[in-house]
């Protein structure tokens, strides 16, 4: 299981929407939205449409797993 905690603020609404549309588990968790995946959790920046300051802060809520990459195009977390 890979888990990403996304701070529940308007700046991250699009990221949560894309995670939901992708089929990842979404659960409200206090101040955070818990996004879960069986295996890799991958989000494409094009789909999220976030400006740089928001995109590159996407992991600020923390995660459980391993960061594979967070670059200009994609965020990828995996188990481990």
């Amino acid at each position: 299981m890979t888990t990403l905690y996304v701070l529940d603020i308007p700046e991250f609404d699009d990221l949560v929407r894309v995670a939901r549309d992708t089929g990842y588990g979404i659960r409200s968790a206090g101040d955070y939205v818990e996004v879960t995946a069986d295996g890799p959790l991958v989000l494409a920046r094009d789909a999220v449409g976030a400006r740089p300051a928001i995109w590159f802060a996407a992991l600020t809520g923390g995660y459980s797993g391993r960061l594979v990459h967070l670059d200009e195009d994609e965020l990828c977390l995996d188990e481990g």
Partner: protein
Amino acid sequence: MSQIPAAGAPLDTGSLRLKGVDHLAHVTWKPEETLHFYRDVLGLPLVHAITATGWVTEDFPDFVHFFFALGKGNHLAFFYYFGLPEEEDPGDLMHRSRHLALHVDTEEELTAWRVRLKEHGVRVTPPLAHELLESLYFDDPNGIQLEITRPLRAFADVDARDAELTLRALSDIAKGERPTVEDMWRRKGELARDHAEQAAAAEEKASIR
């Protein structure tokens, strides 16, 4: 030695409250350019100047210490030291990091300041939208980076609670030998999970009542 409190948790200061910035002080080797820039370009009133021999310590140089009013009781001050050799410029990262951000309320004001700075020959960046702020960046004649910024939204309670967890995560991992941002995010994930469990428990308790 007193115990270090958890990150972000304030010590009880009783009725003691600090009330904003009285002044922030820098050193200048360019008094004329500094006066022109802050008074005539940024429009900050020059409100005070001290001139003195170097009485503070044995090797303290003779100096002029002058103050510009930033509004709301805040001031920006400069020291000019007689006979002090000019220091080398800081590296790029320190130059960008040690900056002073001045506040405006609206996008229109931010745009108007950019126009004014350009009219006075100041090299200024286009507006850059951060998380909660949108900012212009430029240098004063001393090479000190300045920012004019406007809020994109106000800080909310959720931001403060999240900041507590971030600083707790950072404090926990910064004690390690070579802390990385990944270490911090994984620790933050543990703290966020704990927070989520506490929130769920509180919700369940409330629903039982």
